[in-house]
């Protein structure tokens, strides 16, 4: 089993290299640094000089892959690829266009992001699973049908609507919580409660329906019939037998996003003015700050891969078939 996990971890290395090369190609090969400079400076008042100056300021004035002008290892290291891309493997993200360290920014912004994302995730998971279990318990009845209909309806509403509508009703009409803002510590509670609720409602439809499908698939299996033949009540069958088995497919979708919670949510954070990584990313996209976007892409993949490994570990905990083989 240890070998299995070790193999999964080793497998992450080529994936990260792939991500790195992909982003490098996207950012530096599709468009040359010259194009980027022209774009940043505005098309009209561009001169070759100003392009050169911009490139120098931002460290794009080097060859892409191989620096023939340099000597020794500098041939490889004194290049855009080495300085801008390879550094990310040791979590050196460089500086944003306004000259701040991206790494430090990420470190300080993770907290607020997590403050929203983690409760959303936990409350959400409990809600979705309970709702799905309820529908499964009353399967093929009017209650179940109404539940599914509600899920489809909720799924069909744009996520933007939940945010805008929520802000309008809760903050503007009812004045229950401030529209947006953030404050660390206990005082910040009033700021985070609405984003958390909205984040949870946003995916109640699709998640509950998905879990319901999983439960229904499990409940059709032979071992459930055995459990009923023992004389177990339907509730006991559901909780002791079905839920345990359904955990395996549920974990596949759930565990992988846990590390990604650090990244925060783009929409929620920007609407509610939370100074997390999500709004950081949005700001970078709007300001066309490529260094930040590149760093976030790499960080996102890194966390996703950590999530994959965590998924593997969670299997070994939940599923004896994985643990024992």
């Amino acid at each position, binding site marked *: 089993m240890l*070998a299995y996990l070790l*193999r999964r971890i080793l497998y992450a290395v080529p994936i990260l290299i792939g991500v790195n090369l992909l982003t490098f190609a996207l950012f530096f090969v599709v468009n040359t640094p010259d194009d980027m400079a022209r774009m940043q400076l505005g098309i009209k008042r561009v001169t070759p000089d100003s392009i050169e100056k911009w490139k120098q300021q931002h460290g794009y004035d080097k060859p892409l892959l191989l620096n023939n002008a340099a000597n020794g290892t500098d041939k490889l290291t004194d290049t855009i690829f080495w300085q801008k891309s390879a550094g990310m493997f040791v979590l050196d993200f460089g500086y944003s266009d306004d000259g701040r360290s991206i790494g430090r920014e990420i470190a300080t912004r993770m907290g607020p992001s997590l403050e929203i994302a983690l409760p959303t995730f936990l409350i959400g998971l409990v809600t979705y699973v309970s709702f799905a279990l309820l529908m499964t318990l009353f399967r093929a009845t009017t209650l179940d049908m109404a539940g599914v209909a509600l899920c489809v309806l909720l799924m069909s509403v744009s996520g933007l609507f939940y945010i805008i509508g929520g802000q309008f009703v809760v903050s503007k009409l009812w004045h229950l919580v401030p529209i947006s803002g953030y404050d660390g510590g206990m005082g910040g509670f009033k700021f985070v409660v609405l984003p958390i609720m909205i984040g949870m409602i946003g995916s109640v439809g699709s998640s509950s329906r998905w879990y319901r499908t999983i439960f229904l698939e499990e409940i059709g299996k032979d*071992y459930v019939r055995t*459990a009923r*033949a023992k*004389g*177990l*009540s339907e509730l006991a069958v559901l909780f002791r037998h079905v839920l345990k088995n359904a955990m*395996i497919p549920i974990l596949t979708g759930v565990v992988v996003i846990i590390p990604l919670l650090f990244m925060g949510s783009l929409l929620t954070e920007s609407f509610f003015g939370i100074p997390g990584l999500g709004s950081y990313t949005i700001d970078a996209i709007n300001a066309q700050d490529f260094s930040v976007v590149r760093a976030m892409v790499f960080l996102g993949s890194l966390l996703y891969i950590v999530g994959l490994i965590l998924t593997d570990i969670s299997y070994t905990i939940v599923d*004896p078939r994985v643990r024992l083989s």
Partner: protein
Amino acid sequence: MGDILRVSGLITQLRNGARIVDDISFSIRAGETFALLGESGCGKSVTALSLLRLLPDGVVRAGGTAQLDGVELFGLHEREMRAVRGGTAAMIFQEPGLSLNPVMTAGEQIAEVLDLHQGMRGKAARQRCVELLDQVGIPDAARRETEYPMQLSGGMKQRVMIAMALAGQPKLLVADEPTTALDVTTQAQVLQLLRDTQTASGMSLLLITHDLGVVAEMAHQVGVMYAGQIVEQASRAQLLARPLHPYTQKLFAALPDATRHNQPLAAIPGSVPPLGSITRGCRFAARCDQAWALCSEQTPDWTVLEDGQGVRCHLYQDQGARGKAQEIGSGGKVNVGWVERSDTHHSLNAGDGYRCAQPILPTSLLQVSDLQVYFPIRKGVLQRVVGQVKAVDGVSLEIPQGRTLALVGESGCGKTTLGKALLQLIPPTAGSVQFAGRELIGLAARELREQRATMQMVFQDPYASLNPKMRVAEILEEGMTALNIQSNSAARQAHIDTLLDQVGLARTSKWRYPHEFSGGQRQRIAIARALAVSPQLLICDEPTSALDVSVQAQILNLLKSLQQELNLSYLFITHNLAVVEYLAHEVCVMYLGRIVERGTAAEVLRAPKHPYTQALLSAVPRIDGQGVERIRLEGDLPSPANPPPGCHFAPRCSHVNETCRASYPPATSQSATHIVHCHLYDDGLDNKGQKPIALS
């Protein structure tokens, strides 16, 4: 004697009104076994599920009563019913692999029952679990109690199921095809366990099965079901001696065995009618060769004869017909043959009879020598090869033109892998496969394609072996196109018509899709597909194991007549020894990747030498009830990744000695055609006296 269960007028139907179980009544006496016998789709499982009120969604009970130990089951509140389930009445199912919760240990699953019905928890429950596991014959019960189903073999899983059922100390155990998914030697163990348990606890058993042999071995009373009704009910002795209903008679006659080697089996034409399709008349009328006009007009009533045997057939509704029945029934000594012929009771001894009358042809069509198929086991971080699964480990055999070689073995012995390796569907690791003198291993793809027409395969599952998205004509044409058999399309169409005629399907079937056919018809299509390229050898991989007995007979008859007509050779892979007796000229017995005994069918089946062959043969339930002395095999098939040293069979063999554990036995000839790998016969033919058990 009190009845533990009394069912009357039970009706179960789909929500749309189609009846799956239509007015069934029977009762089971305390301590007895009542067998519900029937082919798939006749409603026997639904009967059982109706009784425990475990029907799946969409199926409802629409009428009838059932008293279990004096309690009316259908009047109970669901909460009270839960006390019955697992308490007074327990149930075990067909697929032990799927019926246990994969993420709970065996002990936890048994403890649930103890908690519910015995109020036992904690340490006491654990102790009881171990006791129960011990009681059902699981070795090292204390360890097994903490193991998960995936760590247990199929037979052990069914034992755990039985232990779980016994935990509630039930008065009635409902066993739904409890051994169908198991190998024949494991089946014998489980049936024995059920019998022992019954004797010890005095519980009654409702046994649901399609296997006449199991009925003959287990049942006190038998109800024969057909299309949702019980068509005949009798004691075991009565049923075996004198089946009344034409359907029951046909079921017996359709059983293949050696006594009918020279003649076609009595197959029942057609298949079971779809649910709810017959509302008037006898449901069997369309397939019955004794039917007359009345049968399709008026539903026959339940008639009970003087000796208590009941039947639902117009033949017996008046006195005159009853005389006829006795006349019909009185032909056979025990069982078979009364419908067919009276000359079938010649005894077959090794060396006489039809099979050995023909000498084996000197040139063999297929010659396999020392064939090996290994699969690497990869382990560790770098997935290095750390071992081999020796699925086929040095097999040699030959098949002459126009003859049938049966390859017999239990699941996991490598017989299917061998079949596929012969066709080069799985690349062999080493050895040689020569077809008509031409070596197949190592041929280039193009050369191999030329050889493909000579050898074809018929697969086990007719539902998986036909592409659901292709018409029959397209399915049959595929091989011809791939191998350029008939050059123009008109010739191909004509050939397809001929093929359909040959396998007994209407020519119009070629425009239809597989889902429109029944299992038996699909298997005919599969045979036609193989024949389309005019092969000389057919590899049949358990072609009838997914089919009902009556349909199995149709397919066996077809294979046999095709062999005579086209001078085909068959490699017949099977675990069903009755089929072997009927069809094979030569037999190879395979154990853990190696052939342990081979010879003519008469030699191997009538005078088996290897202890494994003997155990295998004695495990088959016989309908004649003539008990051969049973040889019980202990334990399970070892893993082919890690075969035991010396003779592979040594750990389970009752004649084992030091030599067996040390070295693999060489081939010893028993006759010109009979070879066995066993140290008991090391000195050749001299020590016949040491034969472990003399079989009649």
